[in-house]
């Protein structure tokens, strides 16, 4: 069974088509990344999966049920925009969220999570006394406290510092180990690439790619060279003039070259050595970002970096 199956879902807001004829299915017990730039329809899709919004057309089946009647107690949700009742105490708040999902054992589960995320001492403090990072972790616990089968995270790492990002990342991976299906959206394609088993890429309300990361990358071939060329500062124009190179993405210390079809990599290496000292030469698969830019066109380059 696929925990989430969407067929032909479309959602309009006035004249704007936020999601256009979307079809996808999320494999069970996997981490499914929902990626795309801001405004591509990710949040709208997540809200439709949660039945907060109803699609104008199409079908959405969540954990086997198509009914819009009840928000599903087996689904956990961490929205992108976060908010908590400021005057409530942490434990009280978490028990409230557990109760809303029909769980009576909120207290022990909350305690376990608070300890795990390093908030054990804050259970009886008011939410307003927490730092931003802490309240984001509390919000995360609120989403997972009822042991959901499907966990939906909208930009879970936005605004977190590296330490807390790591804590949440570990928690997400642990949940997957325990059999939770995790659907998360992000505009950070590098992160998605590192964490997700499967990916759906959205752009302007449409799905542009969908599948496991390997399958997607295989589709686009092994045609990227990551290169570190000494004394090559500012000579990306020279690189672009090499016939084997289709496109140069210059990161400063590192350049990423997309190759023409059937380009001879040995020939390329020889030419590069003519330009400068090659310190690093790696033949690899295209990154998600690169794939996205290829699909969405050169205009999307800026968006992808945003």
């Amino acid at each position, binding site marked *: 069974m696929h925990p989430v199956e969407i067929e032909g879902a479309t959602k309009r807001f006035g004249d704007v088509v936020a999601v256009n004829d979307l079809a996808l299915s999320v494999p069970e017990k996997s981490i499914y990344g929902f990626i795309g730039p801001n405004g591509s329809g990710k949040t709208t899709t997540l809200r439709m999966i949660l039945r907060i919004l109803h699609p104008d057309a199409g079908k959405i089946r969540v954990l086997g049920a198509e009914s819009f009647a009840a*928000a599903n107690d087996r689904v956990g*949700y961490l929205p992108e925009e976060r908010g908590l009742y400021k005057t409530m105490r942490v434990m009280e708040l978490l028990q409230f969220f557990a109760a809303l999902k029909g769980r009576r054992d909120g207290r022990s589960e909350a305690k376990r999570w608070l300890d795990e995320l390093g908030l054990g001492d804050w259970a009886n403090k008011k939410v307003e006394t927490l730092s931003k990072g802490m309240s984001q972790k509390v919000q995360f616990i609120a989403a997972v406290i009822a042991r959901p089968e499907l966990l939906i995270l909208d930009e879970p790492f936005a605004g977190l510092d590296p330490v807390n990002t790591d804590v949440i990342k570990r928690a997400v991976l642990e949940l997957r180990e325990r059999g939770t299906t995790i659907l998360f959206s992000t505009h950070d394609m590098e992160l998605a690439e590192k964490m997700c088993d499967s990916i759906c890429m959205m752009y302007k309300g449409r799905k542009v790619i969908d599948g496991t990361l390997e399958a997607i990358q295989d589709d686009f071939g092994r045609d990227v060279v990551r290169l570190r060329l000494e004394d090559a500062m500012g000579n990306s124009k020279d690189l672009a003039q090499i016939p084997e190179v289709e496109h140069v993405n210059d990161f400063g210390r590192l350049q990423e070259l997309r190759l023409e079809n059937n380009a001879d990599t040995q020939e390329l290496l020889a030419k590069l050595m003519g330009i400068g000292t090659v310190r690093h030469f790696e033949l690899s698969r295209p990154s998600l970002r690169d794939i996205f830019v290829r699909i969405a066109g050169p205009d999307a380059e800026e968006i992808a970096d945003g």
Partner: protein
Amino acid sequence: MVKAYIIALREYRAAVRSKAFVITLVAMPMLMGGAIVGQLLLKDQVDTADKRFAIIDRSEQFEKVLTEAAEAYNLTQIFDGAGSEREKVKPAFILQFADPQQIGEPPESTFNLSERVRKKEVHGFLEIDRGVVAGDGKAGVSYHSQNPVDSTFRRWAGSVINQELRRIRCEREGIDISVLQRVVLPVAVEDLGLVERDEASGEISQPEDANVLAFIFVPMGLMMLIFMSIMVGATPLMQAVMEEKQARISEVLLGSVQPFQLMLGKLAGIAAVTLTTMLVYIAGAFFTLKRLGHGDLFPSVDVVLWLILFQTLAVLMYGALFIAIGAAVNDMREAQSAMMPVMLFAMVPMFVWLYVVKEPDSTASIAFSLFPPATPMLMVLRLSVPSGVPLWQPILGSLLVLLSTIVCVFAAGRIFRIGILMQGEGFSLIRVAGWVFRG
């Protein structure tokens, strides 16, 4: 519905535990009582400095009586208590008679005296026309001052002058004044309530003095109680929804509950909060009245039950509207303009209550009290007037309010569902109406 209950429970706890709730609970009666207490406290705080009045008596008939009457007044009327506790509580009247020849004729004389008032040399002045005794209708007495609200001197002088006037006229006409006084002696009309027959002894009770308190202030108090419930219960609901929307708490909740459940939970929570407040006030009023020996002023059980029913319906009806507003607007400024029409409905009883209390059974009163936005307040007002109301009216009224409440709750549910996630778009009544009708 379990989820709505969990939401309601949280709302109730959050509200009742807050300092604001306790403050409101104490402050409201103080605000209402404060006006009365303030008046009572200030009643005796009159300026007791003597007041000077200029008098021009062109008829030359009243100087003597006015002087004597003022002396008597200053001796007997301005003190309270006796012996060592004797205390001056009112200003004495000091009369200054101006020579009509010197002061001249109006309007010049009136102007000169007005100037004296403006310079604070005198408090006011009295002009008695030449032909006032003849009573030809044109001549009269006029009192000029800067403060027409304080009428003590005007009424005192009027009574002295009229008494003397009657005496002079009787003398001129050869009428015995004591005969006249007997002829025109008015009879007082007593204001009494109804009498009842005691079931046990069969005796008919003595009529009691009609109690204006029971007829006006008790009904008004009950009406204000409902109005307060709407104000202190439903209005903060709007603010809370708006804050939750701004703080993005709503979306977190919507991951677990349906918008309609969320709204119902909030409504039920606030209805419980206002019910708590109401019960505290009812109990407080009951024991206070008992203690003060006015237990009879406390409304009957059926009125109290109707009061609780109507106030709950009112909070639900107005609460739903305020929730809808909270969900549809983005900031306090928009909220205030959106609240205006709702507030206007809530204010209707304030405009008409005095009429309804005086004429509780008139067609207009019945119609007003069956107009759903005003029903809770006006029906309770009419129910608590001792003459009572036929049973079908509060029943019909409560059904109409219930119907309106259901309509409001459903409309608000639709507005809430869409509005709660809508950010940044300006408030427009037309768009919000669209949400209600298109869903």
